[in-house]
């Protein structure tokens, strides 16, 4: 029997506003526990929420970027449940009337292109965090995160494989990062994903019973968790069993999912409109303003990189995977208009260096101008490609401009033919045996002579000239 998975994803993205959604506390990650708190985000008696306009702006950006309809009027709702990390005993969220609905994003890889529908986007506040200290017989709670703004992005059940789920998530994250509204860091929890999974026989229309997967804390775990769950559901059905609607937790240590709670134990959140906040009214003018200010998005940029710079798909995809990297590339090209060469050096040398040091492109020790300067020195023949690697390493260490390094270290390429002729004469006189062999037809020895000359010039001799003069002198 052939089965087809049906997957829908719910993504929580933490928004990068400076302050929380309903108070002025900072949102910065990593502060000592309970230092970014105030009576409002602690849910003290009598306090009231006041909406941070920036949160709405960020949500509208994402809504437009994902082709959603932005609601002229949306509502805040209370989601009621008890947990110690939830200071008010309810989370302020949106329920019946979310800020945006009915959108989509297109995901494209070398193999396929697909459209995934976005059911809705809504805003809400994050909860705090419980800290369990095994050395103590109690749990502690840190409310720094309580009230940090989130948007929840709910997809249609349009995804058909774990790989597609991964591609969708990467695309969603790239858009969030391009919009500069979310860090997209799954490990730190600023980008979280729950998955709804079911399977059905191929070509069948009706959906099967779904399970909800939680605790998918990295891209790898999303794909692994989905693989496991799809496989598990297949086995249950093949054995004549039935899928139970339930919430399952992915266990990354054991590489399996386990039931967390069934349908009967599902929370009744008793949603109702929050009487402390007015209906959220958004004018068409404001939406238009936000739309005008949107940056170029990954898909459009990728297409442009292919057309404008003549880059292959692979290069364009990689260089547009982050806005800052694309910006860096374009800055380099503005100084040194040879796109493919720039692309090769970025992908070949720079990204390798950054990966090795765990740095992002914004933390690159080499500025775009200096990076382009290095390529210029090669083109002008001031240094060889080989010396360029040395200069690159020095730039990485010191951040100095390449020309300065070349001068300081005396790395300027020797292009003076008479000087090279002198060195070659030396090499010939010192290696009479090899000269004879060469003349007897062992032309492979040209490389040996090249090496000798380079050794004497510490690699600075222009290889083209050396090659030419050697052939003349050896009579080859």
């Amino acid at each position, binding site marked *: 029997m052939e089965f087809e998975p049906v997957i829908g994803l719910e993504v929580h993205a933490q928004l990068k506003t400076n302050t929380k959604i309903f108070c002025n506390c900072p949102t910065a990650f990593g502060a000592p526990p309970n230092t970014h708190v105030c*009576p409002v985000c*602690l*849910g*003290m*008696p*009598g*306090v*009231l*929420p*006041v*909406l941070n306009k920036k949160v709405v702006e960020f949500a509208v950006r994402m809504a437009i970027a994902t082709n959603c309809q932005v609601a002229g009027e949306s509502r805040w709702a*209370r989601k*009621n449940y*008890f947990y*110690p990390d939830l*200071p*008010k*005993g*309810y989370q302020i969220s949106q329920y019946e009337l979310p800020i945006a609905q009915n959108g989509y994003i297109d995901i494209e890889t070398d193999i396929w292109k697909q459209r995934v529908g976005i059911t809705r986007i809504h805003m809400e506040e994050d909860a705090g965090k419980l800290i369990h200290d095994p050395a103590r017989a109690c749990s502690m*709670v840190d409310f720094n995160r309580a009230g940090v703004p989130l948007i929840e992005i709910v997809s249609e059940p349009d995804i058909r494989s774990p790989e597609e789920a991964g591609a969708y998530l990467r695309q969603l994250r790239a858009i969030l990062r391009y919009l500069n509204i979310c860090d997209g860091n799954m490990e730190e929890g600023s980008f979280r994903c729950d998955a709804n999974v079911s399977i059905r026989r191929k070509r069948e229309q009706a959906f099967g019973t779904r399970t909800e997967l939680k605790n998918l804390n990295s891209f790898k775990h999303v794909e692994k968790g989905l693989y496991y769950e799809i496989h598990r559901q297949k086995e249950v059905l093949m054995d004549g069993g039935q899928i139970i609607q339930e919430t399952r937790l992915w266990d990354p240590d054991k590489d399996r999912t386990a039931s967390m709670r069934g349908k009967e134990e599902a929370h*009744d959140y*008793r*949603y*109702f409109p929050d*009487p*402390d*906040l*007015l209906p959220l009214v958004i004018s068409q003018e404001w939406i238009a303003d936000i739309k005008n200010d949107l940056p170029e998005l990954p898909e459009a940029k990728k297409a442009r990189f292919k057309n404008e710079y003549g880059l292959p798909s692979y290069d364009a995809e990689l260089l547009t995977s982050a806005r800052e990297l694309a910006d860096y590339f374009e800055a380099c090209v503005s100084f040194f208009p040879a796109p493919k060469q720039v692309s090769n050096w970025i992908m070949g040398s720079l990204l390798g260096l950054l990966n090795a040091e765990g740095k992002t492109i914004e933390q690159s020790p080499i500025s775009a101008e200096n990076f382009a300067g290095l390529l210029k020195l090669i083109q002008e023949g001031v240094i060889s490609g080989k010396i360029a690697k040395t200069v690159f390493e020095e730039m990485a260490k010191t951040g100095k401009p390449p020309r300065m390094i070349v001068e300081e270290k005396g790395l300027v390429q020797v292009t003076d033919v008479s000087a090279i002729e002198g060195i070659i004469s030396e090499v010939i006189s010192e290696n009479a045996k090899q000269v004879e062999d060469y003349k007897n037809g062992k032309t492979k020895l040209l490389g040996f002579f090249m090496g000798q000359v380079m050794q004497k010039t510490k690699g600075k001799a222009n290889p083209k000239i050396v090659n030419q003069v050697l052939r003349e002198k050896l009579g080859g």
Partner: protein
Amino acid sequence: MNLYELTIQKAHQMIKNKEISSVELTRAVFDRIDKIDHQVGAYITLTQALAMKQADHADQMIAKGKISLLTGIPVAIKDLICTKGIHTTCGSKILKNFIPPYNASVINKLKRAGAIVVGKVNMDEFGMGSSTENSSLKLTRNPWALDRVPGGSSGGSAAAVSADMCLGALGSDTGGSIRQPASHCGVVGMKPTYGRVSRFGLVAFASSLDQIGPITKDVTDCAMVLNIISGYDHKDSTSVPKDVPDYTHFLKPGLNGCTIGIPKEYFEVNGLDPSVYESVTHAIKTIEGLGAKCIEVSLPHTAYAVAAYYIIAPCEASSNLARYDGVKYGARDKTQPSMIDMYRRTRSKGFGPEVQRRIILGTYSLSAGYYDAYYNKASQVRTLIMEDFNQAFEACDVILSPVAPTPAFKIGENIDDPLTMYLSDIYTLSANLAGIPGMSVPCGFSKDGLPIGLQILGKHFNEKMLLKVAYNFEQTTDFHKQKPAL
């Protein structure tokens, strides 16, 4: 005349003219509390040392010629309104030891106007009740008859004003909690339009209904306090950015051109006490005699108001009171090892029976499968009630009615009968559902000498018209001048 008997306006004049000092006035009020509050039981917390210091500071300001509307005036605050550094119990065991690190916005406004906080006064727990008997902390008695309730939930506020244990007080009104105790204690009380006064720092009972308002000895004082506490507050998204007029400006004689509406449904209520009926109809005649035109109006959905209210208010309360879970502040039951049992025991021990009843009512009404039948339906009724008033106010400027069907009842009389208690809110809670302003002014006494109030309702943000009618009525009567014998 004793200093503590002064109205705010009179005291303000005397302070301004340096006939009395704030220290003298404040001391007189504390002496009065000392003498009679063991009988009445209005105060939960007294802040005498702080108050005397503030009075001294007020006198220094006055000496420098810096005087605001309430400089040096001692006032009492309902214990549901947060006061920085001062216990704010909400009449509940669960917050018995809670000291807020912030002031409610109204407290900051009162302080800027120079007012002196005498202390915090008793109330039904979290504002839930009509008799102040639901306070978990103490019993408050009606100064006019010590075996009777002062009304509620702002019973402490009304009793303190009535017994001259402060010059004025703040209460809060979710379904009549200012107007009904004001009526029962023979003082003036106003629930302003929803959004007129900031709710920041008012511990929420039902957020879409709650509103802070003054309880005072007369209409002029009511206008003075309203001047101070009204206005937009960026900390309360539901407060309305609308200019605040000088309400004392409308306290002028003459009701010519004013039309009063009498809702026929309000006089068909079962259990309307004859003495209340008599006093209120007499008051209406008096007002007519002052030049107002009187017409009959209809509020056809009145019969559904109590039911709608007792769904919406508990729904919001069930959510608003979820934060009292023993985790962050307030009382926690530490006898239980599991988290869920900690919640259960903390809340079962911390909340009184009426609060628990309403939390259960609200939780049930919001539950999956019941939401549409209860919360949604009640919200629809609410809209209809609002439309009733809009329609009525096309024909009249104010609506007059009783505040409560009966004068103050005996302590313990209705405590085991929540339904009768709920039904006694029939005249007041529609104003909260509609968000309109409502006021109670003394309009007579029962045969037993119990005060009776006249309710005046008006259009959104038309407090000035309420005050004008109340002022004109007050000028021709002396009910507000009578004092309980204590």
